[in-house]
């Protein structure tokens, strides 16, 4: 006849496991559980951080227009910057990706180029032809036609001037770059 076990002790909860065996069991439980959770978490974080290794298109000189289109009266004119662009999985051919202002002084062949992005918070700066100045429609930063700040300004720096060349054939090329906003120094984004 098989030995009868007294089941009545089952009603009492077991005491806390102590000693080395208990400690090892706890450690093992935590480690196994933690290890099991680690791969999904790590894979998730790894993929979430992917944008950090993405770089924008390298700054390049892009043809914008030709000299004759820039009025030689000191008034800036807005031009779209058109180039091929990649947005994650989509490739765009010849897309307008932003805008620059080009200006030249009376009778001068030297062209100045400014990014249309406000160095304060990144809105699109506009020309106030009536007042002959640039003005940001968001926080009212004002800039003179040659890009300097009109003090007092919410903007920490003057408009971002872009490198610009007039080619032999009269074409104007501008080095298209984005800069960090809201800081006093003009630092190009990678």
């Amino acid at each position, binding site marked *: 006849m098989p030995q009868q076990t007294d089941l009545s002790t089952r009603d009492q909860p077991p005491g806390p496991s102590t000693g080395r065996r208990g400690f090892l069991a706890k450690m093992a439980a935590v480690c196994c559980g933690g290890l099991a959770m680690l791969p999904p978490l790590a894979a998730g974080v790894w993929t*979430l951080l992917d*944008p*950090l290794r*993405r770089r*924008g298109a390298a700054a390049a000189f892009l*043809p*914008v*227009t*030709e000299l*004759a*289109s820039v*009025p030689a009266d000191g008034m800036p*004119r*807005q031009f*779209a*910057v*058109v180039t091929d662009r990649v*947005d*994650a*999985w*989509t490739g765009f051919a010849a897309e*307008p*990706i*932003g*805008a620059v202002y080009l200006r030249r002084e009376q009778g001068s062949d030297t062209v100045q180029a400014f990014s*249309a992005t406000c160095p*304060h*918070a*990144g*809105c*699109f700066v*506009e020309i*106030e032809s*009536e*007042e*002959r100045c640039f*003005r940001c*429609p*968001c*926080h*009212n930063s004002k800039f003179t036609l040659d890009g300097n700040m009109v*003090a*007092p*300004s*919410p903007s*920490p*720096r003057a408009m971002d001037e872009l490198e610009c060349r007039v*080619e032999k*054939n*009269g*074409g*104007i090329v501008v080095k298209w770059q*984005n800069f*960090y*906003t*809201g*800081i*006093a120094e003009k630092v190009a*984004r*990678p």
Partner: protein
Amino acid sequence: MSTPTSTPKSPADKPGMLGQLADFFDDRTGYRAFMHEALYERVPGGARWRYVWGSALVFAFMTQVITGLVLWASYSASAQTAWESVYYIQHEMTGGWLLRGIHHVMAQAMIVLLALHLMQVVIDGAYRAPREVNFWLGLVLMMLVLGMALTGYLLPWDQKGYWATRVATNLAGLVPVLGPSIQQLVVGGPDYGHHTLTRFFALHAGFLPATLVLMLVVHLSLFRKHGLCARQPMRKPDALFWPDQVLKDAVAMLAVMAVVLGVILLPALRAMLEGRPIVPGELGAELGAPADPSQPYAAARPEWYFLFLFQFLKVFEGWGASGEFFGAIVTPGLVMGVMFLMPILGRWQLGHRFNIAFTLALLAGVGLLTAMATNDDYAALWANRAAYADVEKLLAETDGDQAKIAAALGNDAGRIATFQSRAKKLDAIRHSQSFLNAVVLAKADAARAIELAGRPERIPPSGALELVRNDPLSQGPRLFAQHCASCHAHVDPAAPEASTLLAEASAANLHGFGTAAWVRGLLDPKQVSGPAYFGNTAHKEGDMVNFVQHDLIDTTNWEPEDIEAVIAAMAAEAGVPHGGGPLADADVIRKGRELIADGERCGSCHRFSPNETEPGDAPDLMGWGSREWIVGIVTDPTHERFYGTTNDRMPSFGKSAEGAAPMLSQRQIELIVDWLRGDWYRPAAHAH
């Protein structure tokens, strides 16, 4: 068979089918005790209206979950589909406008309820021990709600959301050290696009609400654990949560819902009263034009509950880089810091008073900044600009030169100071006016984008932005203003402002170019040398003007019917599809064509036959005013087919040296030309 210990039940006590089922589940889950605990919570001092805010917030959140999940079922987060799918929800899906409207307006209601709930908790001192942790949880919940509001604003991928989000994410970049990385992670790369949307959507509909639900469960269970923090003095006997407080809560929820529906439906009521048709797609939440990084958007503003932060950035004028850092990072951080310290400060009576004063001052500050932002934007609606006419005049005369202004004011310091302060006010009005103009433009762009999206051909796979970029009605006026308007006018001669605009122009008025009316003006001896035609050009005393003013009035050669026939033939050459009126009879046109081709008449200068190999001295009239003809003259007016060497100042917009970009691309020229000819998509209902 029953056991001897249990008393046999009478048949009347025996539970019915439903009761048995309930018993079955209660035995196995204990749900009755749970329900009892949930519903029969003691409310010390009786039910009160001031306790409804928490429940109203839970209700608002439930509304957002329900409407949000259904919106999710129709939303597609990518740069080519986000705007498009929201357009489809708003304008084409049954009830979509109501669903989106509720989601949009309830989000705003939630912010108001949050402020009320916070105020009630602080004033009642409900953050004191042992409820500190629950207060902190409440603050975290508040930030989660604000985070969902911020991320939700971008999801339609319209101009408004896009430009507001650019500012918000640029501000995130100001966080010391990690800022640029945070920004890049949030934006999903170096530039705004697909991954900005997918990330914002994952935050808006996944991470943030999931965290919120977890926190809310803890918040509510801690609330139950500590019990309701009763407002002293308690004037009424204690009551139970169910049904007394639940009734008040439910009434509050109903009131919130009524307000939300009211906000959505009010424009419909107004339309009904004014006898206008009700367009459901225009109710509820707005949808702007599709996001376009190359198109300025001067009407960019955050949602009203973030306007105070927007305005706050203007306060730090002249602070340099530290201004934005203080405005966007430090001050909001300090305010949140103080709020987290409230339960500690509240241990002392003075601290509690400080907390109340701080909260009220904060709300007053937010209110003040919001009012300032509104005033900055809308001042032109109520300010009297005419009162500043003298300031405007002096500024224009002196070109804003301080020395000249001082001289004009007699170098009187007092007058100069008054002038400066008035100039500042004028500046504010001007700025407000440009904002209001931008809003009008933004509304027109949005309406046009929606009209284009509703074309029978539907939206192309490349998205609605392509429709907008290739739409002559949207792009034509912009390109014309930028490239043509420095010389050419484009104004209806019958308009009141026409004479001023024509006087300023230095080339022909192109309004209605190609129509019979335009040609009739050209062949009118009084008009041909006027500002609408050759008056301000090098051709003012040219052969054409001479011909019209001398030969054409000679009725022996030119009967009035002949001139009308020439007009009819020219209009037929142009074939302007809209706005030109019906073409004349074929016989009249044939006669006109013969007159034009006649070597003794128009044909002596103009070529009008493909058989003539030599170009004329004046522009070809073959296909005059047609799309191809105008594209040609804009591309290169110095071509022998057009003005050749007699071209007066007009640039060759489409011609460029090898390798250089022309002033205008072929596509841009076509957009201008199609706009000039009134050749753009019109919805069927409008065409008639």
